[in-house]
């Protein structure tokens, strides 16, 4: 036990005596969160759109008025033929075109369903998705109102993400994303670097030749970064509640628990990286390319998974951050309980077990 | 050695780091074609002094002239007229011998024809025909060091600085290396060398011994031994270095 304590203290010395790295470790989440929360907001206001109303009846007029009255959209032009749509996009004035089918009201009344086509400028896929969602939300709103008034049992199948994000704040999607990325980077990259550093220094040889069990070496390497990660979790949550004004809907204990699961998963990933690399540079490169890139690209944090090619969608399943971000969203934003996240939690645990298993298999009690 | 031509001249050259005087008023001259041994214990200030002389560290004060150029204003010209080789960095291990020659020739401003002819001469001399297109990393250490020295003098510099060039090299290769140093000196290249092997100090025309940032002794090995009444340079060195005060 004394060995462990002394070892952990030594690790803290390493961390605390390198103020520059420490600043990065603790400052990075704050900067990231603020940048993503404030500066790069996904909020869109007063977007110019075009409307092609092939029905021109009561219902379509109602919907158009609703769209227009929302603060997100300005109707830039009204189109008359399908041929004008492309031109409208090409001039770059509009981001969205809304097209109503002919006979809209009749269809709705008799067949219980009618179609609205929403075409978006997908040069910025994120924004496009958001805008399309906004419009369909407005349409849904109208529909459910109609349902209540007419007392007809319409079933609405449209996905309504914005339901959980009524104010459409950017922070709502960036907080879980930043948590998923920061925790992974700090835990995995820093652990792997600090283990590999011992190999470079030649001290690993001494540690291996000492009576100290390799497992204890690993545990003491991992604990300080676990602590640093927890500090970061607290900072991120405090910032998001008090600065970004984003409340935690669900149980905070549950949120912390799934976060700890994720940190452990990230630490075991760092361990795995340290067993396959021999220099700090290599460890850093593997961490950045092998972890950061997938997290940014494939976790659903920066780009919606639903918009990806099918291959990438499948691939995204092996990115732990994806599952963690889903859990954070469920607990923090939707306010779901354990029943809502147990599947994802199980996946994270399974991944952790796998990483630890492989690391143990690969960890050498000898050199080479 | 040509005592009429001075290629390194320093006057009270000093380097301070805060309160710490790493090199204190160093004054000496080195002649053309001389093999000059620059000795000192770890931390005596050798590396600091050498860094100033090769133009990568600015002195706190004092004057120095290297190969006819001022150490403050003409560092770029200095760099062109010197060669440098250290134990730590010698050559690119993942390039072949020929590629290393091409690279370093290019760095020192030789044109393509010069590089090819100088390179061929070098490969001839070291007898490396069969290895010329092999990666440097696959050569034994001794060969690497000999090759590295040859490349450091490829552009026929006025002075070549060698920082512990023979550390860990086997005894025969070590001597072959010194044969090459002698030959270079014979061709008029001044050799400025640091070493921890005291027998190598004997091969130098003159030797300076640094202690605590100052040059404590400077003379030919023969004169130094006479002066300190010692049998070998090893003894001279121990006598001087043991008086060192600072542990750093």
């Amino acid at each position, binding site marked *: 036990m004394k*060995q462990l304590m*002394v*070892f952990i203290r*030594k690790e803290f*010395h*390493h961390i605390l005596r*390198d103020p520059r790295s420490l600043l990065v470790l603790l400052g990075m989440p704050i900067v990231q969160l603020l940048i993503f929360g404030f500066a790069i907001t996904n909020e869109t206001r007063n977007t110019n759109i075009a409307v092609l109303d092939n029905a021109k009846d009561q219902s379509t007029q109602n919907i158009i008025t609703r769209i227009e009255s929302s603060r997100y959209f300005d109707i830039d032009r009204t189109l008359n033929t399908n041929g004008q749509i492309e031109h409208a996009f090409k001039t770059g004035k509009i981001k969205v075109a809304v097209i109503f089918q002919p006979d809209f009201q009749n269809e709705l009344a008799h067949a219980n369903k009618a179609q609205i086509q929403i075409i978006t400028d997908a040069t910025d896929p994120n924004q496009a998705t958001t805008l399309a969602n906004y419009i369909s939300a407005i349409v849904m709103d109208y529909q459910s109102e109609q349902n209540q008034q007419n007392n007809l049992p319409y079933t609405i199948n449209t996905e309504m993400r914005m339901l959980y994000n009524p104010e459409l704040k950017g922070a709502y999607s960036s907080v879980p994303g930043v948590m998923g990325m920061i925790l992974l980077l700090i835990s995995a990259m820093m652990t792997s670097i600090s283990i590999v550093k011992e190999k470079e*220094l*030649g*001290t690993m*040889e*001494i*540690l*291996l*030749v*000492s*009576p*100290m069990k390799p497992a204890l070496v690993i545990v003491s390497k991992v604990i300080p970064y676990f602590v640093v990660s927890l500090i970061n979790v607290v900072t991120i949550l405090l910032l998001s509640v008090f600065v970004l004004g984003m409340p935690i809907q669900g149980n905070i204990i549950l949120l912390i628990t799934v976060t700890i699961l994720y940190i452990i998963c990230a630490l075991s990933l760092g361990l795995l990286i340290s067993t396959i690399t021999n220099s700090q540079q290599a460890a850093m490169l593997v961490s950045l390319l092998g972890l950061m890139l997938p997290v940014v690209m494939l976790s659903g944090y920066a780009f919606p998974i639903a918009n990806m090619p099918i291959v990438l969608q499948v691939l995204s399943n092996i990115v732990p951050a994806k599952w963690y971000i889903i859990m954070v969203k469920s607990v923090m934003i939707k306010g779901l309980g354990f029943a809502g996240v147990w599947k994802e939690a199980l996946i994270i645990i399974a991944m952790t077990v796998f990483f630890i298993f492989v690391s143990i298999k690969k960890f050498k*009690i*000898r*050199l*080479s | 050695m040509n005592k009429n031509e001075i290629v390194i001249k320093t006057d009270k050259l000093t380097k301070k780091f805060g309160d710490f005087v790493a090199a204190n008023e160093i004054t000496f001259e080195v002649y053309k074609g001389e093999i000059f041994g620059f000795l000192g*214990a*770890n*931390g005596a200030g050798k590396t600091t002094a050498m860094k100033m002389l090769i133009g990568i560290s600015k002195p706190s004060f004092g004057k120095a002239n290297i190969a006819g150029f001022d150490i403050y204003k003409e560092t770029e010209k200095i760099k062109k007229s010197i060669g440098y080789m250290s134990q730590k960095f010698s050559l690119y291990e993942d390039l072949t011998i020929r590629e290393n020659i091409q690279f370093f020739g290019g760095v020192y401003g030789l044109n393509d024809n010069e590089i090819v002819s100088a390179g061929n001469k070098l490969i001839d001399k070291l007898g490396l025909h069969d290895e010329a297109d092999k990666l440097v990393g*696959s050569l*034994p*250490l*001794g060969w690497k060091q000999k090759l590295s020295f040859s490349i450091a003098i490829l552009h026929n510099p006025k002075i070549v600085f060698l920082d*512990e060039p023979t*550390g*860990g*090299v*086997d*005894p*025969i290769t070590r*001597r072959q290396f*010194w*044969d090459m140093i*002698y030959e270079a000196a014979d061709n008029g290249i001044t050799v400025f060398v640091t070493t*921890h*092997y*005291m*027998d190598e*100090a*004997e*091969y130098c025309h003159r030797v300076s011994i640094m202690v605590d940032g100052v040059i404590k002794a400077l003379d030919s*090995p*023969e004169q130094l*031994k006479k002066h300190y009444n010692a049998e*070998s*340079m*090893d003894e001279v*060195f*121990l006598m001087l*270095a*043991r008086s*060192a005060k600072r*542990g*750093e």
Partner: protein
Amino acid sequence: MKAVVLENIVKTYKTKKSTVTAVDDVSFSVEEGELFGLIGPDGAGKTSIFRILTTLLLADKGSAKVLGLDVVDDYKKIRDIVGYMPGKFSLYTDLTVEENLEFFATIFNTTIKENYDLVADIYKQLEPFKTRRAGKLSGGMKQKLALSCALIHKPKILFLDEPTTGVDPVSRKEFWEMLKRLKAQGISILVSTPYMDEAKLCDRIALIQNGKIMKIDTPQNIVNQFGKNLYAVHSEKMFNLLNDLRDYKKTESCYAFGENHHLSMKDEEYNLDEIKSYLEEKGHRRATIKKIDPGIEDCFMQLMKK
């Protein structure tokens, strides 16, 4: 019981293109309480031998025992009783002298206090700097601290891989004096070095080159087996002298050795006066030739050429 026994150890490394034999059928043993030196240049295979003995590396062939314990089967027991200082060992530069020592004491299940007498000699010199970070120590000081760290758990046997490489002659001398004192306390020591002049400070040495042991014996015996007359030659123009001596028809070898050249002759009749007059012809006016005893380095070079 012997401190170390190696029998027919072979270790090869595979690179992309070829297989390098780092240790080629090496056998030797170290007696208990002996100071045994592995002498050879970089790349001779010294580090691989150390790693095999400290259980960090598995040999391809052969067997090795440390204090009667097998390096493969009993590796855990060996790890408890050896002190090891790896070649590129550089301590934790961001920890202070004291913190480094304390750390290594603890992971070896002991305290500085418990074994202070063992390291006292060495550590006393470091004590004035004990709050200084290890990264700010000079080379010689670092080696002393590293030795203290390797010693702090009172090992029965010490493995020191090139402890004096890159260290100045003064610190090297002090380091060897420390090893002598440790030996006097009954600790067996296996040490490697590329400096041939350190060989004579060992009880017995193995001369190693290209993974092969060329000779094992006491330094004195090795020198005695040189089997040839060796001459120190000096003149005013040493570089010319070297070439002229090599050109001489009866010369077997001639190498620069400090202030003299060491000359050995072929196995035929020769005559010192004849050599002298040859040198005079070549323009060496005050050449001196005197017979000397060979050193380990002379022997090493002779063996290398065999």
